[in-house]
């Protein structure tokens, strides 16, 4: 090498190598709560357009669903990534990944500044719409 200083790394150490394959990198649980009444739903969501009557037969017709939301941003009191209904609700259902992003009522909730059951004022999903699943790099 004619006495030149080498331009290559002398050694490379990685502390995380392969961890990306493990998955579970913080993907949030998505859920929707069921309330025994419209009034209970409004306690959490405050906006009538976010509460819709149950029509899928899973609960009595007097029940109402709130909008889909990220559990891990809502009810930290009950622990992250566990399905726990809001104290105002009777039950909670885990939803498929992507439900929050594609739900019109969840989008309305974000615009109105809600992110889950009313205990948190954190809204999510305000970045990422341009990227979809394509690479953002170049």
């Amino acid at each position: 090498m004619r006495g030149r200083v080498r331009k290559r790394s002398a050694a490379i150490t990685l502390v995380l190598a392969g961890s990306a394959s493990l998955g579970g990198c913080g993907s949030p649980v998505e859920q929707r709560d069921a309330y025994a009444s419209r009034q209970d739903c409004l306690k959490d969501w405050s906006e009538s357009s976010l509460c819709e009557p149950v029509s899928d037969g899973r609960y009595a017709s007097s029940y109402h669903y709130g909008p889909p939301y990220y559990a891990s941003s809502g009810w930290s009191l009950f622990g992250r990534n566990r399905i726990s209904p809001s104290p105002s609700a009777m039950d909670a259902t885990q939803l498929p990944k992507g439900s929050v992003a594609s739900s019109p009522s969840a989008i309305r909730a974000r615009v109105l500044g809600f992110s889950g059951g009313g205990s948190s004022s954190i809204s999510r999903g305000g970045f990422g719409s341009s990227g979809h699943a394509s690479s953002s790099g170049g």
Partner: protein
Amino acid sequence: MRRESRTPRSNWRQRCEEAGFLFHSMGGTYWDESACYAFSADQIDRLEEVTAEMHQLCLKAADEVVRSKRFSQFAIPEPFHELAAQSWQRRDATLYGRFDFSWDGEGEPKLLEYNADTPTSLLEASVVQWQWLEDVLPDADQFNSLHEKLIERLKALRPAAGGGSLHLASVKDNDEDLGTVEYLRDCALQAGWDARRIDIEDLGWDGTHFRDLDEAPVTTLFKLYPWEWLVREEFGQHLISRPAELIEPAWKMLLSNKALLVLLWEMNYGHPNLLPAYFTPQQFGADYVRKPLLSREGANVTIRSRGVVRQQPGSYGGEGFVYQGVAPLPAFEGRYPVIGAWIVGDQPAGIGIREDDSPITRNSSRFLPHYFA
């Protein structure tokens, strides 16, 4: 500079995956060690010199955009002009960038473009081709000190964060971006950061601060997500109050834009490493390359050369185009390599080579290792 055929290591997949490089076969073949590129030491020295010089010219160009308020030529929305200007005036810290050159080892490398904001192929260039060299040509050298320079740079960025954590964000469900961000998180951990990954879609806003999924404040954010997308999305308006320091910083909007090519030519007319570039095609004859101001991975690039028109599809171009002189990529056995030259902080840090069967480098272009002797 020459292309050498080589026998791939029998365990190349395992070796790649040991390095966290899990997207080695995206699109069929991405990592390709059936060949490599060989350089002379003098050629590598030239690439290093030109990279350092292009970096300095780009800094001067950023200064010129701010001084002359030419933000609109860069399609930067008006509410973000001051953000970019102040970011430059503060010299907000940058981590890295990648210049793409057309060169065959003779004459002068020609700058095709600068990926100043969200360059990828980093893990491949830093770790995977180094590991290949260790296994295959342990006595040879390689222009690649990316790993230690990234760690050094990330260490240097820590004091400004006041002991806060570093969040690293990329889009959901993209293995390439995830691999790139996880590699940078690895470097950040080694640099002493409390480094946490988050999908960009999961970033929260509480009215004052960005929050992660644990509701912890996001105060320093590395985002593998272009500024031009951030500023046009729902949360973009929140960036104006600077609730977090972003890496890359807002002034990189001035460089991660093909309008930079026009400005560089205007400020350095006739420079041997630059190609003529204008906002209109009239200065060229029949031969030129049309590039959208904002695009990635060759999308919507059109090459008109010697009566042949080659066009890449895509969804870019709405903000306008620039027109650049043609510097045909050299052909080695029918393959067209682009040399990606990395800058970390202010230092040239290595190269990576992408090769394609087409003269337009695309997202699917293969990555080949290199060495020099």
